[in-house]
């Protein structure tokens, strides 16, 4: 931990007069186990590390990275970032973060005991998940993959402007992709469990999900095209929320690509929609005391009662728009510069249980999985169209399975058409939480 700060300090020490320099140093230790038919298929253990260096001089920014802590390579990386900076165009808003007095919250994200768990225990958990998934239903005929993975990730950000932040988090997960068959019909499902340590993993729940999701799709047919109410499963809602959150990045606002730019104070969604980014919530997978520029994480209201309320900012977007960073700098790792984005966004839960929401739908579809979010959703125009599968809802009851159809609308209309929000808030392994969400008047395309 401290050695990462030491490495970052050493890099910052290479800055020259007139330069702002940011060193982002990251390291992780990972174990991945894949089992297949009762045997270990793959077992990988590895340490990864790397450094990203950003230099700003006279408003010009340059960046370089390297995948090692070798001192010669670090010096080369600084020199390369410096050289690159000469080619950027000047921007008065460019620069690294400056301490703003907000104290990073203490979050319990690091479980040292994970490092001492014998590999054999991890293998045993994966094998148990495979066995339990197969045993959950006689129609489960195979397991496409069954993995245990854990990670101990640490990072440090140090700048010439006085930023000095170290963060670390552990995580462990189990995930199974199952195959169910009945005659010629094959369907797939998945189940997972995650936590900060191995003790939090729930093999039985993951196995049950993996089996149920596949088995209940057996016999699925293509529905006729219609306009219907859809009920999104928490897994699907989280993916939708993640896309909406992307449009609430101030970077998209500054660059004129956000649907919500200039709409502060306007009704942009159903009054049932309240959206908040809060990486200080330790339950979220993206929780962290600080952001990718080393500022403290904080709670950021985005949409309140359907009214556009705020955006997530990093240092650059805040300077461009004359405001303060919300501690929302994000980066894809040491190889990229910080953007502005959400890490832990969630809808405020409602009061109804998922089953009650389904019971309130006369004719609709419960969507349990979507596909092609990257190819059929355009966050700039708002056009939304994804492949989907799920279960027919008829007179408030779950009925036959459906597949090979799409659901389509626009992001703007989906938000306005939210008819009910479930109480079942669930943090998932992504930047958003899920819950059951009911949306009216969605185009279903099928036969």
């Amino acid at each position, binding site marked *: 931990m401290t050695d990462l700060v030491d490495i970052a300090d050493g890099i910052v020490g290479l800055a020259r007069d007139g330069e702002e320099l940011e060193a982002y140093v990251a390291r992780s230790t990972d174990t991945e186990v894949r089992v*297949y038919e009762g045997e270990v298929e793959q077992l*990988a253990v590895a340490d990864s590390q790397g450094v990203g260096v950003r230099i700003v001089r006279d408003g010009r920014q340059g960046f*370089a990275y390297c995948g090692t802590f070798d001192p010669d390579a670090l010096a080369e990386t600084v020199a390369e970032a410096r050289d690159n900076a000469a080619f950027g165009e000047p921007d008065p808003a460019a620069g690294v973060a400056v301490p703003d007095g907000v104290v990073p919250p203490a979050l319990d994200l690091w479980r040292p005991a994970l490092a001492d768990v014998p590999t054999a225990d991890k293998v045993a958990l994966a094998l148990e998940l495979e066995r339990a998934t197969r045993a959950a239903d006689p129609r489960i005929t195979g397991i496409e993959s069954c993995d245990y993975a854990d990670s101990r990730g640490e990072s440090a950000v140090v700048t010439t402007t006085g930023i000095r932040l170290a963060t670390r988090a552990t995580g462990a997960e189990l995930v199974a992709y199952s195959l169910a068959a009945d005659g010629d019909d094959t369907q797939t499902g998945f189940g997972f469990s995650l936590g900060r340590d191995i003790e939090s993993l729930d093999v039985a729940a993951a196995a049950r999900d993996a089996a149920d999701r596949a088995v209940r799709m057996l016999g699925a047919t293509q529905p006729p095209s219609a306009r219907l109410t859809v009920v999104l499963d928490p897994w699907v809602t989280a993916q939708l929320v993640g896309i909406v959150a992307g449009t609430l990045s101030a970077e998209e606002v500054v660059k004129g690509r956000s649907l919500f730019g200039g709409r502060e104070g306007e009704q942009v969604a159903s009054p049932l929609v309240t959206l908040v980014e809060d990486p200080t919530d330790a339950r979220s997978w993206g929780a962290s005391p600080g952001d990718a520029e080393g500022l403290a994480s904080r709670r950021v209201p985005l949409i309140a009662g359907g009214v556009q309320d705020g955006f997530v900012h990093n240092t650059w977007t805040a300077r461009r728009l004359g405001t303060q960073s919300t501690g929302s700098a994000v980066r894809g790792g040491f190889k990229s510069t910080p953007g502005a984005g959400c890490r832990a966004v969630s809808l405020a839960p409602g009061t109804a249980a998922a089953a009650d929401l389904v019971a309130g739908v006369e004719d609709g579809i419960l969507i349990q999985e979507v596909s092609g979010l990257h190819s*059929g959703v355009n966050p*700039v125009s708002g056009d939304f169209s994804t492949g989907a599968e799920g279960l027919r809802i008829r007179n408030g009851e779950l009925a036959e399975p459906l597949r090979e159809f799409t659901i389509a609308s626009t992001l703007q209309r989906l938000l306005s058409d939210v008819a009910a929000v479930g109480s079942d808030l669930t943090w998932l392994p992504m930047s958003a939480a899920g819950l059951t969400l009911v949306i009216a008047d969605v185009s279903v395309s099928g036969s």
Partner: protein
Amino acid sequence: MLDDAVIQRTLAAALRTGGDFAEVFVEDKRSSAAMLDDGRVEELSSGRDRGAGIRVVVGETTGFAHTADLSEAGLRSAAEAAAAAARSGGGGVREVALTRRDAPRPNEVAVLPESVPKGDKVELLRRADEAARGEGGAIRQVRARYGDSRRQILVANSEGLLTGDDQVRTLFVVSAVASGDTGMQTGYETVGRTVGFELFDRYEVEGIARTAARRALTKLAARPAPSGTLPVVIGPGGGGVLFHEACGHGLEKDLVDKGASVFRGKVGQQVASPLVTLVDDGTMAEEWGCYAVDDEGTPAQRNVLIEDGVLSDYMWDMLRCRKEGRARSGNGRRQSYQHLPMVRMTNTYLLGGQDDPADIVAGTDHGVYVASLGGGQVNTATGDFVFGMREAYLIEDGQITEPLREGNLIGNGPKVLLDIEAVGNDFAMGSPGTCGKDGQGVPVGDGVPTLRVKALTVGGTAA
């Protein structure tokens, strides 16, 4: 990249506690990129990633470890970790005699990007920005990205193989935002080849930028796509992703072996219309998915997957070929030295047919014409797949008419392959892509002539 004797000792360390197979994969990848957005060159970035991945196979189990430390001590430590992970039991010392076996590169590289002044790369961005904005005042935003990479690899294994490759790729991407009464729309165009900076002798960045801008402007007048099942005509070069998703992934032997493919047990059977001959070709010069050797050291090959509608073969990685004692196909790829290789596509394309593309459109009474597809996704076990329409139009009475807004199409692979009812004589390769599988991305290419699918579900909102 490494001394032969060091590699030999590392392999010996990997096999010291037994093991049926050991491999050292060394990678040294340098990348540079330049980004322009909002009218300004935001930054240049450059980086280097270097390290080795070592795997040891014992029976059905693969142990894997990687290290960024390429010293002999660093390699030995990774070799021991991989061996321990493979739970190797027996003992003994095995000497490995290495024989250098290089394969020809699909093409030579004329101008290494690292030899090009950074200012020249930045200049391309400014030219692209100006050209895109020159298409009209409705173009409100332009993002342009230049990227290059040089990936040098070395592969050595306990079968005595020693080989390597030097892969240079150069890419240019422009995306534009147009704004009008109907809101904002985006247009996108990308050109990438497995070549150096000579890419820009062949492609003017202004042309790439104008294409992106025109796509955005066209869509301002677009109407919502239809909702329902219609005939779909796909334009030349625009739709290789259809085959990548409809059957490409399902023909990867690792998925087939696990029962996760609808094409399991179908070799020798008619799985597609007789008009379909599908090829995966890693030797295709300059294409985005080409190389001399794959990431297991097997030379790239041209593999016919479907011939006149009959499934002829799957794609394979080395371990599965070893197991079944068959010839290798050269499809073992990995994202980086930090990843295990698996079965992947290279450049996947449908061979041209006999039909006049104009007749294919004219023979479509009411349908959708897709000039350019976006990405896609498939469930190989069910065969259901989606892919996005990046540029599409309505076909009415045999004529291409109004532009359509974006959306996904959905279909079922085995059914769509049989539903291909016309294949044009205008084959063209498409845009460079990144194929994702099990968390790893690798560069791939695709291509198709004009073709018509009898029925696909179009995921729009218009009744």
